[in-house]
């Protein structure tokens, strides 16, 4: 190993090259002074003596992929030259991070892996400029992130830092939704107690629908789907509301509180949930959730319900929607 040590401290009459190996197996050689700019590589050379030949290439951490590595080496190649002015370095840095967000993330990871602190700062700063000032939807768009926060998590009110009217409206909407989720939760609890009565009313409902099959032949599948959903959560009669039904394009006339004799409370709550549920059609609230997730969500909803009770007077003032108010008025 003394040979490789000598190779490192040799005066620069000959250019020495360091061998680097990426996780995918590809090996490349780099000028020594460029490679030494990275603390991790530097340490490998000095402590373990690797890197002097192809067979003893320095194995880089997994997060350093070849594309990022070549970018990093360009960075090192520029900055390790001592004679550059601050202005030059700044301008190079600015151009350097003008890459697409995917490459930027990989570059940041790789820089962290090589412990190249200035580059980590630079890339984090660039990411900050991308994230800053954007709404969560915009950020998800930019980074191609799936919308996978649960409804409850998303409904946590945004801190309205500047009394932004948009945020105020959003928070009101969230408060409404939270309330519905809370009711839905209560509905579930009620449902378990009154299973049998519910089934009866569902049969009645099905009879009604089948009897009226002529006007809704084409939409039968949709009402069945709706019914399935109702069955899953509440087995209560559904109510007609022209607005959301129109959204689905269905013209079904489902009886309004067909069986109001059973549970008048949940019926009305069901109304609320129908009114607002349709915009959230795509949200996987009931279908496709495994029981464990559902339990977690139930717990979270209970937490929110508690929080809501504490700030309910406030929310009452905020919720200005007429429909909501009339339903709430009827119940409270």
């Amino acid at each position: 190993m003394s040979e490789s040590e000598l190779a490192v401290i040799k005066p620069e009459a000959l250019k020495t090259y360091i061998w680097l190996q990426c996780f995918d197996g590809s090996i490349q050689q780099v000028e020594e002074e460029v490679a030494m700019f990275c603390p991790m590589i530097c340490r490998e050379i000095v402590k373990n003596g690797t890197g002097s030949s192809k067979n003893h290439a320095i194995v880089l951490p997994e997060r350093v992929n070849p594309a990022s590595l070549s970018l990093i080496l360009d960075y090192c190649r520029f900055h390790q030259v001592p004679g550059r002015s601050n202005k030059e370095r700044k301008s190079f840095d600015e151009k350097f991070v003008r890459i697409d967000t995917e490459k930027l993330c990989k570059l940041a990871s790789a820089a962290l892996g090589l412990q190249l602190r200035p580059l980590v700062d630079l890339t984090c700063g660039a990411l900050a400029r991308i994230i800053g000032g954007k709404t969560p939807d915009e950020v998800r768009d930019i980074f191609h992130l799936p919308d996978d926060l649960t409804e409850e998590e998303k409904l946590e009110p945004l801190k309205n830092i500047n009394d932004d009217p948009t945020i105020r409206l959003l928070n009101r909407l969230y408060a409404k939704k939270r309330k519905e989720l809370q009711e839905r939760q209560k509905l579930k609890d009620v449902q378990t107690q009154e299973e049998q009565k519910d089934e009866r009313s569902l049969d009645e409902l099905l009879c009604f629908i089948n009897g009226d099959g002529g006007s809704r032949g084409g939409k039968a599948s949709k009402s069945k789907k709706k019914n399935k959903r109702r069955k899953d959560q509440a087995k209560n009669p559904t109510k007609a509301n022209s607005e959301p039904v129109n959204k689905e394009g269905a013209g079904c006339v489902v009886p309004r509180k067909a069986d109001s004799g059973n549970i008048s409370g949940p019926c009305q709550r069901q109304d609320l949930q129908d009114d607002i549920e349709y915009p959230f059609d795509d949200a996987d609230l009931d279908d496709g959730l495994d029981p464990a997730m559902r339990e977690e969500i139930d717990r979270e909803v209970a937490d929110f319900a508690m929080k809501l009770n504490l700030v309910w007077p406030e929310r009452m003032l905020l919720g200005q929607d007429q429909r909501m108010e009339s339903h709430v008025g009827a119940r409270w």
Partner: protein
Amino acid sequence: METTATESGPACEIARLPEDLLSESIARTAPRDACRAAAVSPAFRAAADSDAVWACFVPRDLPPLADGQLSPAPPSKKALFMRLSDSPVLLAAGLTSMWLDRETGAKCYMLSARALCVIWGDTPQYWRWIPLTDSSFSEAAELLHVWWLEIRGNIDSKMLSQNSAYAAYIVFKVARGAYGLDSRFAETSVSLGGSESTRQVCLDDLNRGYDESRRGPRPIGRGRIEIPPNVLVPRERADSWLELEMGEFQNAEGEDGEVSIRLMQTSSTVKSGLIVQGIEIRPKKQDR
């Protein structure tokens, strides 16, 4: 590009970014961005709510607070920031309160009337001290009768956040039977180091006794003087006190010294009815 992505479609590279890198990036934005980031995805939420981010927004050097101000102790740095930016906390002597500006995390202060130097304030015939219920402070100074109206305050610039533009505001009310406040305009000044900023202000509440159905220039109190455009008029705050900007200054890095704030109206007219809660020092926003 490598095709090791497990997601179909465009690879969500940021999903594989280590949490501390994401935290570092979010820490370089602003408090509002960090709150929004928490609503993007579970990974973003974990990074955005972390202490690593909020420790960057909470100023490192908070002044010593009065006993019991932060109890129960906030569970996280984010909770601490929210607590400090929601409402003021009293400093050790109980005469000054502090809070954080929500946008930037800059430190804001209010010097209570007791912390100010109110000329003739200790003479009961001229000023009296009245209890307050709608403030962090227990007392305000009420002007009974003076010719020489002068109020001074100062604060060490080291207590403020660096590299911020601040302004000082006098927070006050005008009592029902007030008079003389509008006959001449008061002069205010704020100075730090070599620079001084001055204003001319009208200390009277323009809406006092004003009949809304009238048109034309508003008469003030009983003076009926028109206010020239360069004179500042009181602005009503959310807490229904009035405030007037007294001047501004830049707290540049390394500029240590004392910020001196002064209000004077020493003409030979008698003034009465000014109720002073204190002087507020906070970052100056562009629209104000």
